């Protein structure tokens, strides 16, 4: 049957069709829905799915299952692979018995990532095959095929979709039924599972040989296709760029031969050489790093082909950001030396800038505001982390001064405090991030006598990526009841001498807790506990502003930056998106804000 599937959902269905038995992962845009789709089906289809604490943990759990011959998938975003890099690099030497597929989503742009690293490069570095889907249909086929490839090679295989495969939908043919259980061979003890240096030396030779075997297998892969065309100029396109090339050619009225590469590493060199036979000039169109282009240049040199290769090295194809059909059209025109008619310039009237902001009623807004008030007059540094709350950086809160990677709020804070002994350092991180990589930093801060205040923004979910579970909750990924880990007790057990738990929307109590934490000489930790507003089922009536009492001080607008409050002709107005969080009422100096709106 056909379903309208997002690329991430399609990958999940591909894994299902491959009979996946164990699925692990850590959420991260644009990858998260691969796992959530699988988790929603795990119970009825009889396989196991867990949100792991972080990507390293996820990969190791999946690898353990694959050691015993089970088929396993692990999902993450590109930067998650950095966290999982330690097991990955050696797992390539050890190898797997059951198919192990890493679905690692890249985010050129970037749309919602801290960098634009290219997982195809990582695959080359780890010496693992990587598949690069152009659209959801292909993503599903690749997910299924990746398990077979993994088992034939005895190696983990990386499936690397980008945002424009993950988050686009397509009509996809799926086998929507429970497949017979695969069973597994079981774990057999032997020296091959213990990576002593002597074993590493042997396995490195084997791993290098597997590169050639993988290339041979990929020479006939259906994911690499030639669209015939005319002339002695051609295009090699990788992943999503293929579709941009096809449409750009159509818009230009051209019919050039195109080689689509879905298996960027190892490159199917014989297929590429055959394609090059008919050409004098070739353009390589791929996003991010010149992975295909580098391999092509090497190939052309090794085979002494008198061929002109164009792409990133002569600045025709950008190395940064995303491509699209419009950009590729311009690139093709330059490559072919065609003059395009000048774009009709459209002078738009000035438009308001509209970046994403913390939601109306978001408890993080209150947490930031409280700590800004508590630290007012001091030169405190607010270190931040990865989550919705990174938006606390923006006006008017300005409460995130640093953001590097998952878990770095506490550790960067500890380091800053070493050099800035007179300044207070306040580290903000979310509940899920705390478990992910925050905890080692906290232990480090206690052990090494850091003087920082840690604020755990505990909104009872992993919000930014779509509300996934984490170890602090009483439900796991499959929705089963589990024993929650208490962040405050964990902090106490780690030796944090001052631990407070408070509701950030109880303004006075939260302010008192914040002040106490800031006055403490040592590591202090405040858990700001309030459920994410998007998960709150019971709607409170919007607040209203009594125009007779309002003194137009602007505090509610200028201090909070709440999207539900805007400037009206008679002073500030609270709109229908207000969730009644009550923060503005509590800070209004003239008690002009009251309950009494109507729930819509």
């Amino acid at each position: 049957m056909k379903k309208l599937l997002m690329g991430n959902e399609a990958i999940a269905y591909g894994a299902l069709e491959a009979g996946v038995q164990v699925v692990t992962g850590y959420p991260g845009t644009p990858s998260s829905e691969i796992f959530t789709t699988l988790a929603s089906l795990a119970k009825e289809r009889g396989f196991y799915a867990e949100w792991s604490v972080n990507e390293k943990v996820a990969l190791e759990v999946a690898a353990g299952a694959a050691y015993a011959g089970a088929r396993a998938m692990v999902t993450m975003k590109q930067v998650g692979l950095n966290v999982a890099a330690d097991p990955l690099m050696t797992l390539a030497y050890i190898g797997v018995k059951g198919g192990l597929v890493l679905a690692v989503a890249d985010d050129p742009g970037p749309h919602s990532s801290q960098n634009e690293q290219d997982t195809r490069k990582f695959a080359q570095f780890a010496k693992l095959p990587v598949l690069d889907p152009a659209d959801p249909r292909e993503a599903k086929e690749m997910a299924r095929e990746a398990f077979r490839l993994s088992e034939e090679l005895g190696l983990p295989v990386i499936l690397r979709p980008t945002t424009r495969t993950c988050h686009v939908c397509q009509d996809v043919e799926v086998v929507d039924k429970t497949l017979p259980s695969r069973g597994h061979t079981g774990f057999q003890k032997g020296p091959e599972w213990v990576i002593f240096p002597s074993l590493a030396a042997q396995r490195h030779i084997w791993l290098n040989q597997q590169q050639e075997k993988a290339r041979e297998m990929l020479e006939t892969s259906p994911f690499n296709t030639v669209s015939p065309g005319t002339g002695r100029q051609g295009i090699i396109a990788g992943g999503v760029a293929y579709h941009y090339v096809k449409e750009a050619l159509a818009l230009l009225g051209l019919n050039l031969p195109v080689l689509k590469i879905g298996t960027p590493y190892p490159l199917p060199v014989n297929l590429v050489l055959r394609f090059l036979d008919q050409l004098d000039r070739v353009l390589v169109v791929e996003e991010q790093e010149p992975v295909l282009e580098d391999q092509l240049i090497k190939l052309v040199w090794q085979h002494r082909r008198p061929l002109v290769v164009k792409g990133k090295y002569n600045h025709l194809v950008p190395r940064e950001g995303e491509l699209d059909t419009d950009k590729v059209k311009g690139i093709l025109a330059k490559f072919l030396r065609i003059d395009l008619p000048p774009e009709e310039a459209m002078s738009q009237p000035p438009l308001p800038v509209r970046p994403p902001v913390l939601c109306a009623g978001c408890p993080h807004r209150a947490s930031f505001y409280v700590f800004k008030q508590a630290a007012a007059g001091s030169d405190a540094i607010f270190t931040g982390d990865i989550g919705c709350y990174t938006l606390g950086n923006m006006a008017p809160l300005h409460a995130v001064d640093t953001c590097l990677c998952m878990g770095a709020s506490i550790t960067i804070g500890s380091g800053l405090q070493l050099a800035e002994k007179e300044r207070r350092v306040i580290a903000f991180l979310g509940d899920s991030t705390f478990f992910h990589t925050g905890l080692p930093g906290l232990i480090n801060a206690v052990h090494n006598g850091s003087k920082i205040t840690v604020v755990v923004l505990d909104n009872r979910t992993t919000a930014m990526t779509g509300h996934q579970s984490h170890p602090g909750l009483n439900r796991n990924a499959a929705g089963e009841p589990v024993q929650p880990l208490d962040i405050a007790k964990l902090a106490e057990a780690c030796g944090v001498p001052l631990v407070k738990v408070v509701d950030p929307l109880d303004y006075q109590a939260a302010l008192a807790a914040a002040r106490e934490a800031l006055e403490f000489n040592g590591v202090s930790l405040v858990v700001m506990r309030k459920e994410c507003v998007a998960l709150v089922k019971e709607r409170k009536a919007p607040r209203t502003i009594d125009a007779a009492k309002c003194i137009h001080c602007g505090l509610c607008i200028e201090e909070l930056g709440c999207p539900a409050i805007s400037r009206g002709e008679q002073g500030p107005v609270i709109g229908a998106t207000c969730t009644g969080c009550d923060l503005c009422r509590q800070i209004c100096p003239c008690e002009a804000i009251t309950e009494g709106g109507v729930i819509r």
Partner: protein
Amino acid sequence: MRLDIVIAGVGGQGNVLASRILARAAMEVGLPVRTSEVIGMAQREGAVMSQVRMGAGDYSALIPNGQADVLLGLELAETVRAVTKLKKGAVVIANSATIYPVSVSLGFSSYHPEQLTAFLKERTDSLYLFDATSLANQAGTYKATNMVMLGALSVLDLLPYSADHLRAVMEDVIPPRLREMNLTAFALGRQAVGGA
């Protein structure tokens, strides 16, 4: 048959749901379809754009500039932002209601509805501009603005399927307790552009 639709709005307005309904309806009449959406919690209140491509075969889900046949604008400024996507003669169905971003309240940028409305009237060939948010409120919630817009689109004889088919897919997608409200919004959208 080919049809490229852009849906522009503000994160949280139900942009994704609208594009999924349009796409599923196309799939069910046998057309190849692709959509692209901005996904994720942290897009709330940000500028978002969905794209639906029916019958586009081997092309990407992203509509090139100057190629869209239809623009559904869920918010006035976001409609203007998406005009570069339109081809000559494209149909624009736009909500005249505004959502003022925090940047405007804080004085970092400005919002001039009259200027934007004038621009739309001058620069589009076929414009249906009405207050869809009021109609949604009339149906029961401002959150049904997306369904008002789908209702309006279903009148204009542009889609490769009937209004009844679109409505049926919508009913199937919407949770039962919200169905009545969304059907009313859909009907009010139809009336807004002269449909029954």
